[in-house]
């Protein structure tokens, strides 16, 4: 096994795992499509990264933070629903990116490229995935309670605004990392599909969140192995692996 491929597998498994875990929270908070929208909002940053030849994730992070701050700012000043603002920001981002994204790089931007990963990328991706996972694990139960009843959470002395901000930052980091694996077009599926599959089969929250983590990691592992075997793009194979697991989960659906 060559080193490059090993790096891809390690990065894929860690990012897939944390994306699945995050997805279990996002579905509960009815934010299933936010990952998708943010994946698109990152496109201008990805475009710059590809033009200057560095890892798209490192370009995506500032673009995502700018996008989130812009949505937050517009929400305060317009009173429009967040989904409408997210829609405006992400389509504007796509439009900007396609003004200067070279045609040869379009496919990488949209469906990712896990094959060009070095040791530095691997260390940073694994470390960030672990940090985000630990942060999410710490706020997980508070976030679930707040999503059921924000009043109840606040009475229990949970700082819901602080938690929401931390959660948004975690989404931005996971989306930025995931873009390397699946590209901006498919990023939403990496967050949502493993969590949806886990939810079908789970009897409790623990099974749901950690099931989503395991399914996310397995989907990336399978997708990258198929990529090696069939020389097809890894991003779509990762998502199709997750989608297949989702279909299988329907047979084990808990009533």
């Amino acid at each position, binding site marked *: 096994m060559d080193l490059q491929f090993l790096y891809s597998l390690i990065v894929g498994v860690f990012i897939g795992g944390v994306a699945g875990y995050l997805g279990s929270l996002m579905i509960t908070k*009815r934010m299933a499509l936010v990952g998708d929208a943010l994946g698109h909002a990152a496109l201008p940053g990805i475009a710059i990264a590809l033009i200057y030849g560095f890892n798209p994730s490192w370009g995506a992070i500032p673009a995502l933070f700018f996008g989130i701050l812009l949505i937050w700012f517009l929400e305060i000043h317009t009173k429009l629903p967040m989904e409408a603002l997210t829609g405006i920001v992400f389509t504007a981002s796509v439009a900007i990116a396609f003004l200067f994204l070279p045609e040869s790089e379009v496919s990488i931007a949209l469906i990712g490229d896990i094959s060009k990963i070095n040791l530095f990328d691997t260390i940073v991706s694994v470390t960030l995935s672990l940090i985000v996972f630990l942060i999410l694990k710490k706020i997980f*139960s*508070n976030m*679930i309670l707040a999503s*059921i009843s924000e*009043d109840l959470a606040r009475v229990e002395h949970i700082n819901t605004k602080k938690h929401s901000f931390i959660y948004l930052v975690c989404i931005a980091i996971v989306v930025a990392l995931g873009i390397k694996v699946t590209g901006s077009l498919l990023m939403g599926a990496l967050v949502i599909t493993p969590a949806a599959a886990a*939810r079908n089969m789970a*009897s*409790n929250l623990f099974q749901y969140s950690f099931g989503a983590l395991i399914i996310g990691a397995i989907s990336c592992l399978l997708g990258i192995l198929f990529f090696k075997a069939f020389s097809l793009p890894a991003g779509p194979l990762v998502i199709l692996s997750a989608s297949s697991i989702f279909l299988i989960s329907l047979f084990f659906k*808990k009533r």
Partner: protein
Amino acid sequence: MEKDIILKVENLNVDFGEDRVIEDLSFDLKEKELLVILGPNGAGKSTLLKTLLGLIPYQGKIQWKNDVHIGYVPNEFVIPEGLPLNLKEFFQFKKDSPEKIFQALEWVGIKASEKNLEKRLYTFSSGQLRRTLIAWAMSDEPNILFLDEPMLCIDIHGRETIYDSLVKLWEEKKQSIILVSHEIGEVCKKADKILALDKRKLFYGSPEEVITPQNLAKIYGSSISL
């Protein structure tokens, strides 16, 4: 603040945009007191509870005694369909000891069996969910309980059981309770004070003073038989 007073409210005003929903309200709650808040729909009862809990901005003065621990049963509580959150995990949000959880569940009439603890909350009926919520609020033994229409969706038999238990518990433990209710039943008779609200204070006093046919007609806008 006087020694036995746990909560003192003075000249409280709450606005939603241009609408004033609570107007110049003053009252206090003593330790171990049961205060029932009555009023028609839209009178500001739930808003008052949320304001006292610090969930809504206000003008005026709300003073709490130090180290007050509050249990709260909100009016609205819905578990998203399909969320695999079971009863045991719900109580673990509070990090209570299992003994306290079991005790609270038994108190509201839910058997704390392994089977019940593994049941997912979204499969509960509205009444069962309401009982669960009451148990949740009680489980860490708060010294003041805020109950916003706790009997919503609970059948008549269940209401009697829970109201009886509530009164019994209150008589035993003597924690302070603020109860928002539409019902003028046994609990009202046991209450120390009744606050009748319709944006502003209509009546405030003992049950004998407040619960009269004339007052109820003023509170609810039509004659109500007792």
